[in-house]
């Protein structure tokens, strides 16, 4: 029987995979994909917790799902702006490698 902890393990694993993508890949767009996967892992944990929440007066309000809806909307906004920045970066500097764009690093 699948329980809450299975969802949490899976969420942690998927989050770690997203982190691998963010830290190991050097393409801006792939880093962005890693961020998306990490957001999804967090959303999964939120929904799983919501499912196993203590009911108040016998009903569980899907508040966790509302949070996830907000996360999805904000993530979509983030992707739109970030991709435009990636394209602008390529236009200006002719690269999408994050190591080549370290001007603001220190």
């Amino acid at each position, binding site marked *: *029987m*699948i329980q*809450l902890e*299975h*969802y*949490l393990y*899976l*969420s*942690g*694993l*998927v*989050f*770690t*995979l997203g982190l*691998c*993508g963010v*830290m*190991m*890949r*050097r*393409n*801006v*767009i*792939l880093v962005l*994909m890693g961020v*998306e*996967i990490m957001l*999804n892992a967090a*959303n*999964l*944990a939120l*929904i*799983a*917790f919501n*499912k*196993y*929440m203590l*009911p108040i007066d016998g009903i569980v*309000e*899907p*508040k966790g*799902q*509302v949070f*996830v*809806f*907000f996360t*999805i*909307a*904000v993530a*979509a*906004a983030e*992707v739109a*702006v970030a*991709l*435009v920045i*990636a*394209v*602008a*970066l*390529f236009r200006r500097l002719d690269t999408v490698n994050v190591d080549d764009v370290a001007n603001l690093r220190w």
Partner: protein
Amino acid sequence: MLDFMFIFFASLALLGGLLMAFHPNIVHSAFALVAALFGVAGLYWTLGADFLGATQVLLYVGGITVLLLFAVMLSTRDAARISIARYALMAPIVGLLGAFLVTTGKALVPIVRAAGGALGPTEPTTEKIGNLFMDPTAFMLPFEILAVLLLVVLVGAITLARRGEEDAA
């Protein structure tokens, strides 16, 4: 049946995530991302979140991936390269974080379980979510702020994407 669905969608999400992180070809990575996101949508359905599963498919699988692919086509010239030295450097960090997440999850389970909550029969959640959005005592203000945010993002993205005067000449 639910167990089978969990295993199916979980492996879809994990395999998709693995391929996304490690495939050298960025377009293949993007398609692996589709699989991973669809797997997560399926997991939402196993948790009874029907509305969010549909939102996930529409927004992520349908919208964001297309945007990503367009950005790839507009920007990437050569196949993305991966450096092995970076793997070696990052492996302990990633491993530690994974261990931390699993430990935290394990620690949280008894707390949530003590709070009650068993898997009941699932019912549609769309109406409840809609009521929460339109309830002034619940999430109405965040919902309106979100609408403004999306407008700002639209305008901002168009402004950023326009070629500057020097490029147009």
